[in-house]
């Protein structure tokens, strides 16, 4: 079967992670994604190693957003560069940008400029804070517009001495890119049906809020004195998490706990738990939750995570060990579903990328290839588009490619 976005051409004028991730996902799904970079390259290429991985590792901040793309360097500050961009835009389905309104205006790549060249193009903007309101012209990265602004950093700061734990890298950028890819696909569908091409807006602020929707929606109705959620006070002690002897964590998610209580007691080999009248029903376990959890805490501390994994492999309810990032690479369920996909970088290094979380027709969605070298497809792209070498040379002389 063909890939979902085969034949779709995307011109991406975007930097960093959030918006480029959408381009990368669409490349995974078969689109031709042309990444237009300034002559110095996407500034993301200047990021030092933020993952403290061994020097032989891939650069996740380049590979994850930009896998499978083609790259052309264009200096959009000059006429000749813009001509090259417009030439590419003419035959594109999607224009994708992270640049803010003042810069888009200055470079003449705003909606009206691009639509003048291609009236039917789907124009997509990813921003930190959204296209309206007082911060419409302000830059935003995900730790400010997503993490800090969604309520989660404030929530987590209640649990740690040093404020919230550090945000995992690109935490909201990746969800944002996912959202943009979905929005573009929706706009492409609409255009097929109605001929109308949309202007699409996605912001990190909105993405962050979406992830925290339950807490946000209930906030106006919440008594400010309500105690913070705590695992020592979990209303359902078998929908909770417990520390093991080797300081790892195991999560049980036994909703409708009356179905699972006897089984859990059996797995934990605890007659004490099974027989105690204080814990016989869900209601009773909630009423006596502190003592119940203390007891469960004591039991879980007696074995290592590996031992508990063995024990719970027989459990009919939902559970999981809190696995480490390294352990993910050896997980049979993940491998069976193709959620890690092997890619070889231009340097010849083999590594795994996480697949986009949407798979079609039984096939894993695999990257088309690694991230491109900056400007590696400049000449090839223009030649393919029908531009004669002489014209490419004239653009080069004029400084269009930097």
């Amino acid at each position, binding site marked *: 079967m063909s890939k979902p976005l085969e034949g779709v051409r995307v011109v991406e004028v975007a930097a960093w992670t959030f918006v480029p991730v959408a381009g990368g996902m669409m490349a995974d799904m078969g689109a031709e994604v042309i990444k237009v970079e300034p002559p*110095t390259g996407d*500034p993301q290429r200047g*990021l*030092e190693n933020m993952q403290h991985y061994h020097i032989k590792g891939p650069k996740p901040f380049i590979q994850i957003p930009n896998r499978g793309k083609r790259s052309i360097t264009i200096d959009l500050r000059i006429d000749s560069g813009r001509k090259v961009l417009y030439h590419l835009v003419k035959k594109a389905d999607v224009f994708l940008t992270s640049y803010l309104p003042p810069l888009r205006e200055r470079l003449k790549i705003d909606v009206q400029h691009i639509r003048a060249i291609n009236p039917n193009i789907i124009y997509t903007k990813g921003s930190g804070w959204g296209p309206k309101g007082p911060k419409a012209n302000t830059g935003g990265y995900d730790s400010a517009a997503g993490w800090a602004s969604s309520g989660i950093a404030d929530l987590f700061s209640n649990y740690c001495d040093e404020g919230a734990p550090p945000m995992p890298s690109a935490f909201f950028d990746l969800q944002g890119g996912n959202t943009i890819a979905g929005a573009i696909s929706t706009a492409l569908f609409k255009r097929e049906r109605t001929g109308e091409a949309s202007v699409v807006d996605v912001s990190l602020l909105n993405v962050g809020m979406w992830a925290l929707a339950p807490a946000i929606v209930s906030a106006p109705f919440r008594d400010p004195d309500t105690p913070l959620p705590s695992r020592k006070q979990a209303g359902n002690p078998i929908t909770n998490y417990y520390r093991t002897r080797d300081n790892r964590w195991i999560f049980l998610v036994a909703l409708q706990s009356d179905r699972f209580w006897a089984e859990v007691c059996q797995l934990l080999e605890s007659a004490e738990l099974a027989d105690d009248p204080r814990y016989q029903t869900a209601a009773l376990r909630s009423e006596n939750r502190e003592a119940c959890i203390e007891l469960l805490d004591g039991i879980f501390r007696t074995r290592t995570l590996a031992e508990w994994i063995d024990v719970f492999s027989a459990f009919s309810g939902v559970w999981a060990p809190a696995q480490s990032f390294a352990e993910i690479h050896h997980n049979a369920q993940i491998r069976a579903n193709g959620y890690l996909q092997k890619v070889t970088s231009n*340097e*010849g290094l083999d590594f795994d990328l996480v697949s986009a979380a949407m798979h079609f027709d039984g096939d894993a969605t695999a990257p088309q290839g690694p991230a491109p*070298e900056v400007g590696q497809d400049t000449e090839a792209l223009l030649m393919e588009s029908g531009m004669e070498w002489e014209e490419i040379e004239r653009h080069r002389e004029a400084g269009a490619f930097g």
Partner: protein
Amino acid sequence: MSTFKPGQRLKSCICATEVMIIKYVGAAEISCGGVLMANANEAVKQGKAESGFMKGTQMGKRYINDDGSIELLCIKAGAGSLAVDGVALAVKKAKPLPSSD
């Protein structure tokens, strides 16, 4: 004798390397692994690689001579390395990025 011109694609006779000529002047000979490169659509006569020119080429990198008058873009990586009139080419340095964290 091959004639070289910009826009032309060349392939190595001793490895998988393929390049596109981006800039070219004069009549210099372009080699990979010490062996003259062939037109991409020519039948390749397997040559014998010279050990001094087996440093490898990398997809997407641009290789230039001293004065930048000759530039080759690697469009397929290989084991050999590029030279012009027997002098090894250097990787074209990307413009300096603003330093970032």
